[in-house]
């Protein structure tokens, strides 16, 4: 499927700069114009450059920009854009309060890729199959986009515009990702179907439910690799919210989520398989999330 390019070397020639502050990043972005690209972990961009699909004149590395690093709790959790996928997979607070995100990060490609790849990179690459996107959608995440003009906060749902397309303007940098505060009675789960463990998703789904007694009082269902962008299943969420879940209702919600997908057929799976598998994994994720929220076994 790949055109026979030489992946032994990088054929393209380019400049490389390594700013240490956001102010320097903005300066380089305006200096080098649209021919410049930001690079974080490089696990997507360098592959695309080796394949000669992208040919930037200048790479602006974000690796040493302190303002993009770290993780802070502040009515929720704010994760710096260059946090590695592995650091999220191993984070104790993420494992406890944002379980679906921890599961997605642990299912992410291979260990060295997890070490190198960053959360911001996974989002800005905007693959419809990005593993971190569905759990972040389930946690009502927003992204902080900064430029010289200041900062704007965009809900993640509005950030993805299409495959490889985001709301990020050329003069902007994705600074951090904010996850909504975890609430009492919440439970979440991520389920991924892939050809082999290290491959990207054929489909993946993340679910968060909030339980009060025997009722679902809030619910998020998000899917990856079933549409041009990662998507929420709004109709299925509405169907389940306020309900007392049983196996039949969860099946129905999963069926609605599956019906609302718009998958394509590609080398990894057919449209039919993706739609069917969506339904199955949404059902499984809902069931697991409900139990994690402390809900009773579904009858």
């Amino acid at each position, binding site marked *: 499927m790949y055109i026979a390019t*030489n*992946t*032994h*070397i*990088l*054929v*393209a*020639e*380019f*400049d*490389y700069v*390594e700013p240490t502050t956001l102010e320097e990043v903005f300066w380089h972005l305006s200096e080098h114009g649209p021919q410049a690209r930001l690079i974080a972990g*490089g*696990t997507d961009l*360098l*592959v695309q450059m*080796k*394949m000669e699909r992208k040919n930037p004149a200048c*790479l602006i*590395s974000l*690796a040493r920009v302190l303002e993009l690093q770290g993780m802070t709790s502040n009515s929720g959790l704010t994760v710096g854009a260059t946090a590695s996928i592995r650091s999220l997979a191993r984070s104790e607070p993420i494992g406890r309060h944002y379980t679906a995100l921890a599961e997605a990060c642990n299912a992410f*490609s*291979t*260990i*060295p*890729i997890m*070490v*190198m790849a960053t959360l911001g990179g996974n989002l800005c690459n905007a693959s419809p199959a990005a593993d971190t996107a569905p759990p972040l959608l389930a946690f009502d995440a927003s992204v902080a986009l900064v430029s010289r003009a200041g900062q704007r906060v965009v809900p993640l749902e509005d950030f993805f515009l299409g495959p490889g397309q985001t709301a990020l303007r050329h003069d902007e940098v994705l600074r951090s990702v904010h996850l909504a505060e975890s609430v009492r009675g919440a439970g979440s789960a991520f389920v991924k179907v892939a050809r082999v*463990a*290290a491959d990207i998703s054929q489909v993946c789904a993340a679910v968060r439910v909030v339980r009060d007694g025997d009722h679902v009082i809030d619910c998020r269902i998000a899917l990856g690799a079933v549409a041009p962008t990662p998507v929420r299943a709004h109709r299925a969420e509405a169907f389940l919210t306020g309900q007392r879940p049983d196996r039949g209702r969860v099946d129905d919600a999963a069926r609605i989520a599956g019906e609302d997908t718009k998958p394509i057929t590609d080398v990894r799976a057919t449209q039919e398989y993706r739609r069917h598998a969506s339904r199955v994994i949404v059902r499984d994720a809902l069931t697991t999330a409900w139990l994690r929220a402390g809900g009773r076994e579904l009858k």
Partner: protein
Amino acid sequence: MKPRVIHLTVNGEQREVSVSPNDLLLNVIREQEHLTGTKYGCGIGECGGCTVHIDGQPMLSCLVLAVAVDGRAIVTIEGLARNRQLDPVQEAFLDHSAVQCGFCTPGMIMMSRALLNENPRPTEHEVREFLRGCLCRCTGYVSIVRAVLAAAERGAGGEERS
């Protein structure tokens, strides 16, 4: 695209090398440092053959720009043995015949070493999960997993030098 001088620690030795922005760490290791244990397999991050440790973390040298590792410590497969003593993981690979054609072996051993550094007593499942990015077309993985578990049993965990 001017070459620039970077400073690295390679297997404990200070090195100064001249690299261009498009030089990959893998090629600097193999062609400038003449350390050919680290392998070029797929070149796109899918096989694990080029795995090295950078500041103690396993990374794919085919997807790392050499300019980006200025000032950092690299350990390659050649850096695991000390005073002509093989690393216990290397010994275990020999004992369990976990090597057939040998092409994946450096990557497998660097990943196994990284695993035991952070988790000295992994379960079989944890070994398989950690090594999932290393492809072997000969052994079927059974002997490799056995070797890593045996190395762990012999207390091979613990920090390597950097």
